């Protein structure tokens, strides 16, 4: 069962790399924000898997809960920031 958890964690890391592509090469700032949000939501599950592999779930579940909260607050704060500052444009069309 631990091997299956390890394999799931590795698969999640590959999915995080896919989302990181959108975070790096995204045409707008909001695309990068979407990529970061997707990485954060995968990290919650990855933290729980790490807790099961190490046998300390009772500790890691609190960290995962705090990380989910932090991810939500970060995305909310960044998008409220772009309400005020209208500096969004398509980087591919500027060139």
């Amino acid at each position: 069962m631990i091997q299956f958890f390890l394999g799931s964690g590795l698969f999640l890391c590959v999915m995080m790399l896919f989302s990181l592509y959108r975070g790096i090469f995204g045409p707008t700032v909001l695309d990068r924000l979407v990529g970061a949000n997707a990485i954060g939501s995968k990290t919650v599950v990855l933290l729980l898997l790490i807790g099961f592999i190490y046998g300390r779930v009772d500790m890691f579940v609190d960290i995962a809960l705090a990380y989910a909260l932090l991810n939500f607050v970060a995305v909310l704060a960044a998008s409220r920031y772009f309400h005020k500052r209208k500096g969004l444009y398509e980087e591919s069309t500027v060139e």
Partner: protein
Amino acid sequence: MIINTVVIVLLSCGLIFFFGGALGIIRMPDFYSRLHPAGKLDTLGIMFMTSGLALYNLHHFTWEALLVSLKMLLIVFFVFHSSPTATHSIVDAGIRAGLRPWSKHERR
């Protein structure tokens, strides 16, 4: 034995949903359409994987393990409220900044 099978099926469902979400984030043509897999499939993936892990945690039943499983279900509850809020907020920022949605005749 049967609980392991159920846990493996739930985790595999979650991984499939995460795979679809990551593929949609890469392949979709537009920012607004990229939010569609990012908002829904990640939430569903978290729900399946976390409920599978909470079920596996109750393998040997104690009250502490029950408390930890309830905390995992609390993560699911929180994500089901926070993910639509974050998605709505990002879309609102895009609309206010004046990003036009992708139309059919543009090549992207």
